[in-house]
């Protein structure tokens, strides 16, 4: 703390309240931290714990009149931001402190060109005019790595891809040459490969300009890679704060430890993931003890009675703060030692060798969407969403389908369920050809193949009770003779997925995201399926809830011999759950094989790049990260030859001409790449 001049932003005891004065929702409840010049400070936590509200209150952007800053002090470069008027604040916002939001799609004005939006900031804050504005625009776009920036300034946001938009957002934020950049989940909406590009870009800019970055995220992986300081927020408070090295080598708070344990990965395969029971408590409750006590495995009786102090533990190079009774010297450990963290890591009973005859076989599946234009709706082209996919899923096993968004993963899932009718190819389930089935016959068979969707909020009819949602499939498939029998079945289903029987009489909106996903699982199970297509079932969930859901899926698989087609872009989930992996790129599978071989020794350059782009918690492994150029090309006119060659670091002349044939390996892998021909 001796180098006080170094501190750019100092927040002390910040409190933000929402709603009524008498029983406010304490979104931010006494948060203090410092950010030094040129450093990256990460604020980490699950959704709903007050991260974004902290950031918004720094800029006084709290939505009024619902919310208000109830107390605290924010010193920015020695100046108290809370004391500034709205007009004075305008000179700070965008000029000295900028912000990047999570959703690049909605943060840009769709009716203004990119250039005009950047120019607005330049004219307002930098005072440029005339030609200098457009020159600076081009410079900025160039700085954030947008190719042909002089042309791009006349583009509208819809002409840019997601990653490009986020780059434009960063350029916008940089236009005022800020001293502090607040990035609120800047990469959550992006694919891993793009995420890596954006994080690199931010680090590069920081190096050049020396600005400080406040990074708000829920992704431990990102934190591990790029930041200097970490603060973990829980229920409106910071529970632990330390330099990155210290934090990762010596995690103190039980919540932080749990977060680490809940991240899935290859080394945890075959075991249960650690979960954090329950969910974040509602912030309008009056807390008497530790906020995490209800969910803590290492809880002491004292934790329920007394709020833990903020403790500063002195370490070698920097301070390490934590809010937990365990580290308070003034508090003695109770005599009756609290139950040690239960070892919940049970060995699962999967016999990995067992590989029966495939339950489902897909041969040369194609789904093309025609593009129609003009008066007579002539077909002028096709979107080759899925263009020749082969795979098989054996009984009781999980096949993970991996790829960037837009590569056609979801279309494969829907195509095999006949939710979208395939253009060509065959899908055979237990020898029955699904693509030719129609009407009643198809309807009968639908009970065997089910689907779980990504967004637990849109996957249930908001106007139906949970019991009717679960009963719907049973009635359609005539499972259960009487209403009473179906009700019994519903009760057992709910118990199976870990929900109370009383859930049946409630509506979907009364449940949290994780609980809703359980209901969706129960709905799929209600018709006794053999195969479930899981379409990114955990990507909308927090890490701790994700672990609960993954455990549930794994348990069900062991118990009921279910097969899963697990569609995801999260490679750590793949590593944990899948038996086989298929990597998809632009409508085709480029590599597939058993999970161990693919994760350890990827052969296709695309798989290599995907794997290397995943941020890991393991700091020691100094891997070389392969950066992919550009983004996924459009499936309307895929590149000639190998689809991947424009982005491939190892592209050869051959790649431009032919699409590579399959190369098979003894270990069961199949790769489509000219490198191995």
């Amino acid at each position, binding site marked *: 703390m001796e180098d006080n001049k170094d501190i750019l932003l100092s927040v002390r005891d910040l409190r933000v309240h929402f709603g009524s004065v008498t029983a406010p929702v304490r979104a931010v409840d006494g948060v203090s931290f410092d950010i030094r010049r040129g450093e990256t400070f990460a604020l980490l936590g699950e959704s709903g714990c007050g991260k974004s509200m902290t950031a918004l209150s720094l800029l006084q952007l709290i939505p009024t009149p619902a919310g208000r800053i109830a107390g605290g002090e924010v010193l920015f470069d020695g100046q108290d931001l809370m004391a500034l008027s709205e007009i004075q604040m305008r000179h700070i916002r965008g000029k000295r402190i900028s912000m990047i939001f999570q959703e690049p799609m909605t943060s840009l004005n769709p009716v203004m060109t990119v250039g005009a939006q950047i120019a607005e900031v330049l004219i307002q804050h930098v005072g440029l005019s005339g030609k200098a504005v457009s020159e600076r625009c081009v410079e900025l776009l160039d700085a954030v790595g947008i190719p042909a920036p002089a042309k791009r300034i006349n583009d509208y946001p819809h002409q840019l891809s997601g990653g490009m938009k986020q780059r434009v957002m960063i350029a916008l934020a940089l236009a005022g040459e800020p001293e502090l950049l607040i990035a609120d989940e800047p990469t959550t909406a992006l694919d891993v490969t793009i995420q890596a590009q954006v994080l690199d870009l931010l680090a590069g800019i920081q190096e050049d300009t020396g600005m400080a970055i406040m990074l708000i995220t829920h992704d431990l992986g990102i934190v591990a890679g790029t930041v200097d300081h970490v603060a973990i927020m829980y229920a409106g408070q910071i529970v632990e704060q330390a330099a990155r090295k210290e934090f990762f080598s010596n995690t103190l708070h039980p919540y932080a430890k749990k977060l680490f344990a809940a991240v899935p990965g290859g080394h945890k395969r075959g075991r249960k993931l650690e979960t954090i029971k329950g969910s974040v408590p509602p912030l309008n409750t009056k807390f008497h003890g530790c906020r995490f006590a209800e969910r803590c495995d290492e809880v002491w009786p004292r934790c329920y009675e007394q709020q833990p102090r903020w403790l500063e533990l002195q370490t070698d190079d920097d301070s390490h703060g934590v809010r937990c009774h365990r580290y308070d010297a003034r508090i003695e450990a109770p005599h009756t030692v609290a139950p040690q963290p239960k070892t919940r890591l049970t060995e699962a009973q999967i016999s990995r060798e067992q590989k029966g005859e495939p339950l489902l076989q897909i041969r040369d599946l194609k789904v093309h969407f025609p593009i129609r234009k003009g008066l007579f709706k002539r077909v002028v082209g096709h979107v080759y969403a899925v263009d020749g996919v082969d795979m098989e899923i054996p009984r009781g096993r999980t096949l993970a389908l991996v790829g960037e968004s837009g590569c056609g993963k979801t279309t494969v899932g829907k195509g095999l369920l006949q939710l979208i009718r395939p253009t060509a190819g065959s899908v055979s389930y237990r020898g029955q050809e699904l693509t030719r089935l129609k009407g009643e016959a198809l309807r009968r068979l639908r009970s065997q193949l089910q689907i779980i*969707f990504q967004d637990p909020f849109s*996957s249930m*009819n908001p*106007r139906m009770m949970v019991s009717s949602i679960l009963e719907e499939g049973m009635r*359609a498939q005539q499972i259960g003779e009487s209403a009473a029998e179906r009700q019994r079945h519903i009760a057992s289903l709910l118990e199976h997925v870990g929900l109370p029987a009383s859930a049946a009489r409630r509506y979907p909106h009364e449940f949290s995201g994780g609980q809703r996903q359980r209901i969706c699982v129960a709905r799929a199970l209600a*018709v006794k399926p053999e195969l479930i297509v899981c379409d990114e079932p955990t990507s909308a969930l927090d890490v701790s809830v994700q672990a609960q859901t993954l455990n549930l899926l794994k348990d069900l698989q062991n118990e009921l011999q279910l097969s899963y087609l697990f569609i995801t872009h999260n490679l750590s989930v793949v590593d944990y759950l899948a038996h086989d992996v298929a990597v998809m790129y632009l409508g085709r599978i480029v590599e597939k094989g058993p999970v161990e071989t693919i994760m350890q020794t990827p052969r296709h350059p695309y798989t290599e790049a995907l794997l290397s782009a995943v941020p890991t918690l393991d700091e020691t492994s100094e891997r070389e990260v392969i950066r992919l150029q550009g983004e996924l090309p459009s499936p309307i006119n895929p590149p000639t030859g190998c689809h991947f060659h424009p982005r491939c670091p190892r592209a050869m002349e051959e790649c431009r001409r032919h699409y590579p044939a399959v190369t098979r390996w003894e270990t069961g892998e199949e790769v489509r790449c000219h490198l191995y021909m």
Partner: protein
Amino acid sequence: MQKLSRQFWFAPLLILAGLWLLWLFVPLMLGVKPVMLWTDRLIVLLLAAVVLLVAYIRRKAPLREAWLQVFRQRRAMIALVVLCAFIVIGLLDSIHYRKPLPRSSGDAVQYSVEVLSVLDAVLERLRAREEKTYSAPFATHLYAKETVTLPDGRQVRIYPRLTHAGRHLADPQKDKAADIMRTSLQGVAGGVLLGLSLLLLLTRWLAWRKRQAFLSCWREIWRGASEIPWRSIFLTILIVIVSISTAWALSGKYHVFGTDKVGQDVLYLSLKSIRTGLVIGTLTTLVMLPFAIALGIMAGYFRGWVDDIIQYLYTTLSSIPGVLLIAAAILSIQVYIANHPSLFETATDRADLRLLALCVILGITSWTGLCRLLRGETLKLREMDYIQAATALGVRHFTILGRHVMPNVLHIVLIMVVLDFSGLVLAEAVLSYVGVGVDPSTISWGNMINGARLELAREPVVWWSLIAAFCLMFTLVLAANLFADAVRDAFDPRLREQA
């Protein structure tokens, strides 16, 4: 579960059955012949639908929550009270009967050809008191000079005294103002008394429902502390009752809104017009809803050739000028009526058929807007995960339409219906003015305005028919619009999330 679902239609059905019995036996006791016009039948149908809907909404938590939000808004509730007053008048005017003629002994009972309604019976004092021609509001003399033979045989041209208004005044010039003041004070006093006793009854009922002491309930209401703004509702009820009672007291002695060309009381005409307005506003919707909903969601859900046909249909229909279509249809109905006089027992029957025809034709021309909206919404809904999930579960298409799509587009239907209502009331006035509206013998605001139009050039101007029609129409449409706003706010998910 099962019991609950049976209960929801049970109570409303009981109510409807009770009303049916009343309708059967009360006329028998009074010795009149009940008459059911076609529009009356549809109104009964509509009423039954509304009652069932209310019962259904009470059972569904999300719907009930949304409606409660409507009920919590002060402006919406004031509008609702006003609307209710209009609806009660409209309903009273929809119970028709024919009086028996004085019979010569031995013959079977003959009934008069004149079809009356309960409202006519209530307003007998207004209906029966016809003057010769125009008279201004609160006038004691006719608006036109007449040649009168004096008792001494001389003939003079004067404004003669009215036969039914201000007869009790010895010297109208001097006494009229005081008399009007006195009568209205009596009316106000009576209204306040009546209103307060009604409010006391209402509070008693509320206290009973909430299991609260009567006094504490009363105090809570007047402090404005109740969840639903009962204070505003009470005040509105009081104002409505006081104005009705004042008008009632005054109309015994004067023509409050004057008289029209043939001497009919304009207040009576304006009140009778309410039914016509309401019928046009609601029955039209009833006609168009099945088309709009069924075609709209089918087009959006099935896509492909179904969508092509339905789109073709509504694009064609909406590109034909509406007024032209309506004029053609109404004229051909008119010809049909003229050629088949034997089908209609009374003149009211004929006028009623034309009213119904107008509703149908307005419905046919106006379903396209809602249909297009529903198609768009369904296009969005069919991609929702829960509909895909239902398909994956093997649920039949029409079950999906009924169970998943319909309930999720109902808010749009509701908003459109309430918004359309005021538009249709106004459309009736415009069409009647053009001459392709309701039958000239049907009392409607459109016909009143049309009649008044001819007299606007007169010197001095006959303004009261126009103003009376305007005032009532304005009140009804304003109340409907305010209520529609509240409904839209409550059912718009985006606004609800912010709240």
